[in-house]
């Protein structure tokens, strides 16, 4: 089936593979097919060398040592491995974890698993209206038996940047491990595991113009962080993750990191320009538009916007040339708006009107301009259909009406 959407604005869901990355990967699908763990011939050595160079690239972008990088299948696995692995290794000494209500499901579910099956106590920190955690609240939630704090770097739905350095400080002072899910942060903000006192960090290939199905977990060596492996096997990746590595995927992740590292500053400048052009384009032509999440502490590649009085799904249906995501994630039967927007205290009616716009490396100015036009046109059309818009124009306070919730 032909994909009819022709402008991709969903860079938080996934990113296209950078052609430079693909080019580096291809030989490892062809004649360089060796097993990187084969020690006896050049096929193995060649594959091993490629994965080790890739490991260096991954390490470099977060100022780590290559020895601290474990390749995985993606950030989901990395998050599971970090949280459950640390919990299983140290669980008999300390059994309290602090995370945050807006974390990715794989972090929340890992914590829930430990709570339900392994006698762990979990604190789910709330967020402020801007989507950031409150450092005082974090400090207050620390207990004698707090083993681990897991807070993400950049949010996948609302793009906000958490204060990693401050969290890291707090962890170090209290002798608590700090894990951070940086799937959406790599290549977007400067990350330094030493400066930020990070003990474990999750990385994903397909959010940074690399391939899907590969990621990495950074695990600190000094002072050493121990992790219990989840899979039994040949003990690859320093015993933390058994299984034969895919050199092609590792090379892809490495090259993706290398490019991000080299080009981040330039890319961010371009994205800031495009984001401003988009946001100003929308807000100068539409009123009652609200940005969800901090406007200050956010990456330029994400805008989560509520278009009051226009339901998000109908808006997406109208802008059919644009591939965006409904911020309200209300496409399932549940009719529930996103747990993230709700956690920010966005009222339910506004949460239903949200779009997540993701812009990235291959977004052009022309695409931004067409997107603004399409969105403005459709918002205006749908508002002319909206009884809520009509009431608002008549000065009726919608929140004062007694609605029959169904």
């Amino acid at each position, binding site marked *: 089936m032909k994909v009819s959407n022709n402008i991709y604005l969903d860079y938080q869901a996934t990113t296209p593979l950078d052609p430079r990355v693909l080019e580096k990967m291809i030989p490892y699908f062809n004649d360089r097919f060796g097993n990187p763990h084969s020690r006896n011939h050049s096929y193995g050595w060649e594959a091993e060398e490629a994965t080790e160079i890739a490991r260096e690239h991954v390490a470099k972008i977060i100022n780590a040592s290559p020895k601290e990088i474990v390749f995985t299948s993606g950030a989901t696995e990395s998050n599971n491995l970090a949280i459950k692995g640390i919990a299983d290794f140290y669980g008999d000494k300390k059994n309290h974890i602090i995370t945050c209500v807006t974390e990715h499901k794989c972090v929340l579910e890992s914590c829930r698993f430990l709570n339900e099956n392994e006698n762990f106590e979990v604190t789910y920190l709330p967020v402020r209206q801007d989507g950031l955690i409150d450092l005082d609240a974090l400090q207050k939630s620390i207990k004698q038996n707090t083993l681990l704090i897991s807070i993400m770097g950049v949010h996948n739905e609302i793009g906000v940047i958490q204060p990693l350095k401050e969290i890291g400080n707090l962890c170090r002072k209290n002798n608590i491990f700090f894990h951070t899910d940086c799937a959406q942060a790599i290549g977007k903000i400067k990350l330094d595991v030493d400066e930020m006192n990070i003990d474990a960090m999750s990385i994903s290939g397909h959010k940074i113009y690399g391939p899907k199905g590969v990621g990495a977990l950074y695990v600190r060596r000094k002072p050493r962080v121990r992790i219990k492996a989840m899979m039994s096997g040949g003990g690859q990746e320093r015993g933390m993750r058994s299984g034969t590595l895919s050199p092609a995927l590792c090379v892809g992740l490495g090259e993706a990191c290398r490019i991000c590292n080299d080009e981040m500053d330039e890319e961010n400048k371009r994205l800031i320009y495009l984001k401003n052009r988009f946001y100003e384009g929308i807000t100068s032509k539409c009123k009652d538009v609200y940005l969800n999440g901090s406007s200050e502490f956010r990456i330029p590649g994400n805008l989560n916007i509520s278009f009051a009085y226009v339901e998000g799904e*109908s808006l997406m249906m109208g802008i059919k040339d644009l591939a965006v995501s409904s911020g309200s994630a209300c496409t399932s039967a549940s009719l529930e708006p996103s747990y993230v927007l709700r956690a920010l205290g966005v009222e339910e*009616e506004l949460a239903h009107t949200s779009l997540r716009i993701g812009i990235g490396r291959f977004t052009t100015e022309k695409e931004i301009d067409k997107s603004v036009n399409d969105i403005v046109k459709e918002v205006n059309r749908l508002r002319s259909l909206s009884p809520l818009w009509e009431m608002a124009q008549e000065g009726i306070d919608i929140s004062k009406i007694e*609605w029959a919730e169904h």
Partner: protein
Amino acid sequence: MAYSKELIDHYEKPRNVGSLDKDSEKVGTGLVGAPACGDVMKLQIKVDDKGIIEDAKFKTFGCGSAIASSSLITEWVKGKNINEANQIKNTEIAKHLALPPVKIHCSVLAEDAIKAAVNDYKKKNRINE
């Protein structure tokens, strides 16, 4: 998810969008749904002396299926006697638009909107069942 031609047609070219004078004796207004649930429909009918619906208008906040369902019912109720209109079933709406299962609630809401509008008209004009 692929929507039916019929549904997309109503979504893209909704019929009878607008408002009637809600204070008129001849107009019945139904406002159903809730913003917090993501859909609100307003259906208005204008009824003549013989109880026939001579005009209908709608405005809807909701997904494409909700918009299409409400657009469709404005066409269906026009020319019908109010009691006849009251018989329209959500299943007919769902079938006509080929609503996917997760969108059946939109047709339920449309049926509710008709009932609410007819009710409002009857109350205004002191018509008992």
